[in-house]
């Protein structure tokens, strides 16, 4: 399917728009940074992660990045910081904690406030 051409959207008249603000194509949020309102971001500890993939299954924004069947990180252009990945992440008995936890936006390490 060819991309919906909206390059001249600012010049469109009322009748040029698809009816009722319908977007007649799928997946165009790929083209936009929609992660800007995130107040917390998921932090994943590589050592603790068992690669169970539950975060990838549950993420409502397809923002868990996977390469060769392994979670490698998050797509922060699209992650809204909802925390579902951290909530679903099971505790690793070897470490007694989860691999994913939410940290305040702007911080790199857990525990830093």
């Amino acid at each position, binding site marked *: 399917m060819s991309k919906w051409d909206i390059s001249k959207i600012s010049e469109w008249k009322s009748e040029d728009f698809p009816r009722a*603000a*319908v977007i*007649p194509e799928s997946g165009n949020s790929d083209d936009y940074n929609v992660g800007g309102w995130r107040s917390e971001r998921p932090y994943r500890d590589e050592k603790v992660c068992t690669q169970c993939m539950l975060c990838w299954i549950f993420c409502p924004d397809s923002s868990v990045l996977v390469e060769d069947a392994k979670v490698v990180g998050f797509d922060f252009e699209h992650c809204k910081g909802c925390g579902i990945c951290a909530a679903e992440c099971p505790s690793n008995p070897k470490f007694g904690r989860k691999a994913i936890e939410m940290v305040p936006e702007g911080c790199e390490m857990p525990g830093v406030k």
Partner: protein
Amino acid sequence: MVDQKTLAATGNSLVAEAIRQCNPDVIPAYPITPQTTVVEELAKFVAQGRMHAEYINVESEHSAMSASVGASAAGARVATATSSQGLALMWEELHIAAGMRLPIVMFNANRALSAPINIHCDHSDIMGARDTGWIIMFAETAQEAYDNTIMAFRIAEHPDVLLPVLTTADGFITTHSIDRAEVMDDETVAKFVGEYVPTYALLDTDNPTSHGNFAGLAGPYFEFKKQERTAIDASKPVIKQVGEEFSELTGRPFDLVETWGMEDADIAIVVIGSTAGNARHVARDLRTKGVKAGVVKVRVFRPFPAEELRTALKGVKAVAVLDRSESFGAEGGPLFLEVRSALYDLETRVPLVNYIYGLGGSDVRLELMEQVFSDLSDIASGATAPFGLTYLGTR
């Protein structure tokens, strides 16, 4: 004209029958007096396998309209019904259904709004929906309620329109009285209504679409509202055309505005719904006494038939507009305000008075209609029209 079966049935039962015959895919519904028997009958039809709709028992009217919006966006033909507080609870979704251009058909049993609590007829509930973008049709009789409901699907789903339609009847007076009505057979109705083919359907996975999108932050919200205005203006010729086809099929006349005695009327009542019968009865009596009385019944309120009203009322010496709802603090009831606005464009002014009547099911006795016509005769022969509105029949 097709063969029809004559039934004795209540307005609600005939509305349920019309909805069944139009074969909606989804019915999300919540019961409320005096609409309850409509959704009860629909639930029974589904349970008996007499219709194949997905019947959803929702937990409130807010959810009934939300589910209707979702099902309609998915591509289904959707019908529901409500009344009074239920319609009020749907308020935000009414705007969403119209803004998303979803051809949902909803029946409303016209009933007063609280407080004080009351379950009887007036038009306070439906007039609250007049600026939501829905097409609004009124019925005088059970027959008209049946007919309007069938036409509503054709109008809503017309490609030039694609707007939701509210088809209404007066609570208890029309919804619960047993009336004589003619009904068509299922095939005739199915053929008349046709199959609904949505242009954008969420369940059409070969053509994925996204609905209910954001158009703020200097986005084209205003342009989408203009689309809505264009659509409801375009619905008027569609309603007329569907009405003509329906008349041809059934032999029953239909127009946005229906008149009685207006060819030579000196005085006239403009009215909506079941009270039109009372007004006509008294007008007929007055005619035998040489009074040229007429009645104008508004059957479609949105889009507002301004041109038709100008034609009907031009040259009349005195006109009374009867409102069965209030617009507190305004110059008059909703119908009065719009009729007066429509008549402003006439070169010769038509003397116009407003009566608020029958709130909360207060009895609309024939004496009240006689009083209105008598006031009109006085105004027509030179008496000063009362300034402002008159409460008719209050203590």
